[in-house]
């Protein structure tokens, strides 16, 4: 089975939402700023709950925030 990579648009969405800081996003979804940093950099794949909370903060869908790229 090919490995899939999860990419996200959190950084872009933060800046499109009034240059929201990582800390502000972390406070709104109930996680640490460190978690937001590793999320943005693709080092951590969030749970469905956290993904839904992030999408809700940006007023969009999970698919608009996170995309799966099938690898070779």
């Amino acid at each position, binding site marked *: 089975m090919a490995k899939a990579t999860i990419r996200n648009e959190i950084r872009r969405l933060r800046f499109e939402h009034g240059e929201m800081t990582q800390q502000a996003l972390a406070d709104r979804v*109930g*996680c*640490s*700023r*460190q*978690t937001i*940093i*590793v999320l943005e*950099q*693709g*080092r*951590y794949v*969030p*749970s469905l*709950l*956290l993904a839904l909370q992030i999408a809700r903060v940006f007023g969009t869908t999970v698919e608009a925030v996170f995309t799966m790229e099938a690898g070779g």
Partner: protein
Amino acid sequence: MVILWGVAALGAAFCAMLIVVRRAQRVLPPIVLPPGETMPTTALQRLAWQSLVPIFLLTLATAAVVAYNGVAVAWDNDAVRLPATGLLVAALAVFTYYIGRVRMWIIRDNGTLDERDRAILSSAPAGQAPAMMVTLAAWMIGLIERYHASHLVPSAYLYLIFWSLLMVSILASLAGVVIGYRRS
């Protein structure tokens, strides 16, 4: 000689734990931060460091006391054995404090721990069993080689084996948390 085996056992256990934790992780891209900015630490990460360092130093101090005086003296002489035990009990007290704080965070669920913290906590014990097995194997090989001819292993070693396994287990679990933040 046997003390050297003990030190080698602790070193081998630490290496085994590191290898297990590293192999269990995916290959991840490096974290890139803006110039001048440092990675913020989480409450669990700080607590794990604040517990790991004193426990490691107390364990090291105990090993130094036993190594300096020799196993026989450390076992027979109350003036050596009791302070050495005191150092280890102090290390246990630090670990108890760590466990208590973490349990309190989990039970209260007040947002101190997020899902990544919990994931790291869950995977932290991965290195404990290999570290303990290596320690036990090193003790067994060392003691057999040293006392094979006499067929008599001093009972002091039961005490040392127990404490070394306990401290290796504790250090491996704390190191698992610290390493978990670097590797996820």
